[in-house]
């Protein structure tokens, strides 16, 4: 072929005995992998275009297709791995920054998998969630330090605004533009049905979704896209996005080709113009500056809505969180380095930031140590994959979790990690109308509700096993956790004992 040739990463294996040449694969592949050879009546595949999104595999009515990893490998080298070498080739071809999507795929430690949960035996009986009431409801926001009474002895209830969640989970920020209208509608409807919240991301709020405002967090990011009075008033809370786990220290860049029609109107920028979110907020260079924005947003929303400050988990996260907790913010959201994205420079995604487990443990401890833990609620995200991850996060000190990757998986995403191409065959990370329509929000919202309902059942099971009947009683209860295969330092940061201790 040529010096630029890279052997395709995947091979399309078609079982010709099964293939009925219905051409569904061809019609469903926006990457144009499949084609029909009318002379011979057979299907052909061009795997150089395949991203292994599995859309064709899922829709093939006779299970005639599978996509496998190519076994054409470069000579083995523990230092120069296949992927590393190919990245060199790509950059030698293009001269450009490598782009990737979704979360860090590298085999870095996943601490959730090295933490085990306790269960009650004999002396403190477990609770059967099928027979006993279990409370998963949480309130997010600043909590009073002590109970205070007025001159008549009545309890004073003038606490800061709170978010009420039926379970300690929210759908984290994904902008309209990075994901489709139908993906947003699915999230909004599911959040409403579940009694939780979803997050607009930084792309503004489509006019059709103002009706879901009570279950919406509106985000204010460095690009300030789509931010105006009605937008701030529409949501149940306002989130200031300082950073994102997948690309800490980096802004965003939605190419002008995606700024069309409703996306342009919702972002309030001209069609075809690039939507550039600067790396910093240009008006925030200190906690004091942040405090100004927090208070400005509170002023704009008449102090009725909690303000969230979202930051990426980075090295000094405990000190940063301490500052935010003093800025007037009600909630701190911390995004770990495995968090997803619609597009990020590969080097940033794979090498910047720290694991959310460690960040959470150290932030919770720092805020406690400084006596300001009740100033804020903590929400953590960045690859919360299951109900047990949620339970572990709560026990490490979180008030609630943000999930996004799991949510888009429920919507059909197969983690092919090519969101940046804009050709999402599942209708999620795309603005092409013929692809967007592949995600019917009737189905999408139902699947999200199913997923969260299942998690809620599992959370109750795990809580019941520990003999805990309220999620609030689990928060920061690190005695319920033990580490496995962790060294002293890791256990110290996590604030947990080793299994067997």
């Amino acid at each position, binding site marked *: 072929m040529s010096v630029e040739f890279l052997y395709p990463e995947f091979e399309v294996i078609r079982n010709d005995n099964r293939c009925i040449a219905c051409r569904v694969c061809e*019609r469903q592949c926006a990457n144009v992998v499949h084609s029909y050879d009318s002379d011979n009546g057979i299907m052909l595949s061009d795997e150089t275009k395949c991203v292994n999104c599995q859309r064709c595999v899922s*829709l093939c*009515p*006779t299970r*005639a297709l599978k996509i496998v990893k190519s076994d054409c490998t470069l000579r083995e080298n523990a230092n120069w791995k296949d992927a590393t070498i190919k990245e060199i080739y790509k950059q030698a071809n293009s001269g450009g920054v490598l782009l990737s999507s979704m979360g860090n795929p590298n085999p870095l430690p996943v601490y959730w998998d090295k933490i085990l949960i306790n269960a009650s035996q004999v002396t403190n009986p477990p609770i059967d969630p099928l027979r006993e009431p279990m409370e998963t409801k949480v309130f997010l926001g600043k909590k009073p330090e002590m109970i205070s009474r007025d001159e008549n002895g009545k309890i004073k209830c003038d606490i800061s605004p709170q978010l009420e969640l039926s379970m300690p989970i929210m759908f984290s920020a994904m902008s309209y533009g990075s994901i489709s209208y139908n993906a947003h509608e699915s999230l909004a409807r599911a959040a409403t049905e579940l009694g939780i919240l979803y997050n607009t991301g930084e792309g503004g709020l489509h006019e059709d979704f103002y009706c879901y405002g009570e279950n919406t967090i509106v985000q204010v990011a460095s690009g300030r896209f789509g931010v105006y009075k009605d937008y701030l008033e529409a949501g149940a809370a306002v989130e200031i996005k300082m950073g994102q786990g997948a690309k800490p220290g980096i802004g965003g860049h939605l190419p002008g080709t995606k700024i069309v029609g409703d996306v342009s109107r919702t972002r309030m920028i001209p069609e075809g113009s690039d939507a550039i979110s600067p790396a910093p907020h240009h008006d925030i260079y200190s906690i004091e500056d942040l405090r100004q924005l927090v208070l400005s947003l509170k002023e704009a929303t008449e102090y009725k809505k909690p303000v969230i400050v979202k930051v990426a988990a980075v090295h000094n996260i405990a000190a940063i969180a301490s500052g935010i907790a003093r800025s007037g913010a009600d909630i701190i959201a911390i995004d770990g380095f495995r968090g997803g994205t619609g597009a990020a420079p590969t080097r940033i995604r794979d090498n910047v930031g720290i694991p959310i487990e460690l960040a959470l443990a150290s932030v919770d401890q720092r805020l406690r140590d400084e006596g300001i833990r009740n100033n804020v609620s903590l929400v953590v995200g960045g690859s919360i994959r299951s109900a047990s991850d949620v339970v572990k996060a709560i026990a490490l000190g979180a008030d609630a979790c943000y999930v996004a990757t799991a949510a888009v998986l429920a919507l059909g995403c197969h983690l092919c990690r090519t969101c940046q191409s804009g050709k999402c065959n599942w209708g999620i990370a795309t603005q092409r109308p013929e692809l967007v*329509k592949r995600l019917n929000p009737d189905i999408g919202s139902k699947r999200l509700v199913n997923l969260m309902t299942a998690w809620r059942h599992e959370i109750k099971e795990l809580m019941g096993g520990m003999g805990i009947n309220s999620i609030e009683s689990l928060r920061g209860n690190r005695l319920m956790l033990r580490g496995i295969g962790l060294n002293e330092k890791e256990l110290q940061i996590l604030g947990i004992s080793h299994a067997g201790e």
Partner: protein
Amino acid sequence: MKRVYANEKWCLGCRLCEYNCAFANSGEVNMVKALKGKPIFPRIHVDGDESINFAVSCRHCKDPLCVKSCISGALSIKDGVICIDHNKCVGCLTCILVCPYGAVSEGKNGVVQKCELCLENSCGEPACVKGCPNNAIVYEER
């Protein structure tokens, strides 16, 4: 009466309904055996252009032109469902001539075929609806 309705907003034009229909009415238990290497005879047809798709099948009209026009008495209404007696049909195609929806087509063996809501096969519910990946075809009362 429950009918099959297509929602063009959600139709992807993937044509799975056509294949599921042809399979459901093939009498075979395996789709590969039923459809591989053969012309298919679906009773539902995906219509549309570059921008919009929608599946068209028998509307089960209350006052059906096909039944009134059938020269062999093969078409009849049973409990609101327009049925065809393949034994009586001689393949004159007059029903195709009159059906304003283009929902009757030539089938195998020179007789015509049309959607009978999968009541005549072992599918139980319309196969097109069951197999639609995007709820673009529904079976409901309106």
